[in-house]
């Protein structure tokens, strides 16, 4: 047990040294900073802060909470775009730079290595988004959210990130290319966002494809709030898709030549 733990810790440290280093983390921080900066500037321009007329500012402040939530969700959804980029760096790039060839000849199981790589991306992104949403929702929600509501949102965030990471991981192990992983992940994300914008889009499909947004809208009684039964079913189906995609990825990775 202790030996296994020591091995896993060593593997984690190597993985952090390979995939979570300068300039990758700095790049992520820059995307976060500029994303939120652009979002703030965009909100300010719409309300006419620069015109000198105070009325639009008062009107803006009245509607700030829902706007923050809406914009916040847009930012959070955009942040999910980091998933294919980080998966490409962690899972696809090692095919190209020879990391797998070097490290899969050390006593490391392929399954353990892939779980470590994909798990770290999920942990990082879901942790980041969970923290951000935990701050945003209490600020914007008209009533104090219950623990159950927050729990639901957190689970939905982890599920959404896991879904995006599982799809990107499958593309990465299948194509062994950094660029195709990024492009494939972005295409999935774009289709996902486009579908969410469609009128008459079934709520259960929204939960399956984007549980994060569905959960947030659900607890804040947004216009697309699905009924709870649909919501639970959607989450279970989404989880099943994640599991199937990861199993497929592991099976392919186990047989992949490096």
């Amino acid at each position, binding site marked *: 047990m202790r*030996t296994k733990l020591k091995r896993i810790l060593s*593997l984690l440290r190597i993985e952090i040294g390979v995939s979570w*280093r300068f300039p990758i983390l700095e790049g992520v921080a820059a995307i976060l900073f500029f994303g939120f900066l652009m979002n703030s500037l965009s909100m300010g321009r719409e309300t006419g802060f620069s015109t000198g007329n105070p009325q639009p500012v008062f009107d803006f402040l009245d509607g700030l909470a829902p706007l923050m939530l809406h914009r916040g969700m847009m930012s959070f959804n955009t942040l999910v775009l980091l998933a294919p980029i980080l998966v490409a760096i962690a899972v696809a790039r090692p095919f190209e730079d020879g990391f797998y060839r070097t490290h899969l000849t*050390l*006593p490391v199981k392929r399954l353990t290595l892939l779980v470590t790589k994909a798990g770290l991306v999920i942990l990082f992104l879901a942790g980041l988004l969970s923290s951000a949403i935990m701050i945003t929702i209490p600020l914007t929600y008209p009533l104090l959210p219950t623990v159950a509501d927050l729990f639901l949102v957190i689970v939905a965030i982890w599920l959404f990130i896991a879904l995006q990471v599982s799809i990107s991981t499958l593309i990465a192990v299948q194509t062994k290319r950094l660029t195709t992983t990024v492009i494939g992940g972005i295409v999935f994300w774009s289709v996902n966002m486009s579908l969410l914008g469609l009128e008459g889009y079934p709520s259960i499909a929204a939960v399956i494809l984007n549980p994060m947004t569905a959960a947030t809208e659900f607890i804040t009684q947004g216009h697309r709030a699905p009924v709870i039964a649909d919501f639970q079913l959607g989450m279970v189906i989404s989880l099943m898709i994640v599991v199937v995609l990861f199993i497929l990825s592991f099976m392919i990775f186990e047989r992949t030549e490096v």
Partner: protein
Amino acid sequence: MRGREVTESSIMVSVKQMTKKYGTLIALDDTNLEIESGILGLIGPNGAGKTTLLRILLNLARPDSGHAQVLGLDTKTDSFEIRRRIGILHEHPSFPEAVSVRDYLQDVCGLYNSDRTPESLLKLVDLEYAADRKIGHLSAGMRQRVGIALAFAGNPEIVFLDEPTANLDVESREQILDLIFELHQKSGVSFVLISHILSELERACTHVAFMQSGRIIESGQINDVISRLTQRYYRIKCSESHLLIDRIREINGTTSARILGPASISLVTDSDYDDVRTRVEQIATSLGVTIYSLEQAATLEDAYREVIR
């Protein structure tokens, strides 16, 4: 090696009827090889299948047919256990660039759960002074030493080294070859060396195997192989080789004569030793050249040329 009587326990690697194709390219063609305890040099031209064979032994690639064992363990089903007991240096190893050499080796020792320390590994390859440098800041030669240190992190029973002396200066090459020999002598570690520098292999190896077009075409104890393949090879040491070479080529049965240096000639001929000696001495006397020695002697390089001819 293949075809020889060896005890079961002395066979470190066994490859049987291994075939591997990449599309229409046949990388391994019904390859058979048995590697005994010792230091084996795996030799062949580019594209001969050496690296493919190594990748299959390490379970980085899957054969189309045939099977292989390393340390008596099946490469497909017991890959983890094999990797725990072997060491590898790849031709172009990839390391985490932003991590210090010490930290990286510490983590790799952790993966092996080895009692080795980064300091002992760095001492092995004479790189203690760079322990705290980031790997990304190391020169090509220093990275090569890190790769060699990595190969010994798990106290391996057999070590596969693909171009171990690439990027190293002359002194470092000598040091690595000495290290290989010393580890084999003192600790009984076996080695499989893949290299194109045949003079180094000749110095370091106890056995050789020649590969061409995906097949092992010759293998055995190094001196047996050289003498078997180069019975027609002679080396002439003389005062001025350039004066002698044209006339030497005229000796009956000569298939090749080339200058090895200002005072050395390599001759390949079907004539027997006495005839060659008589003819060479006659020619040398007529040209006023002194012959210091004429011996049936050849190098691993000669054997290689002969076998791939």
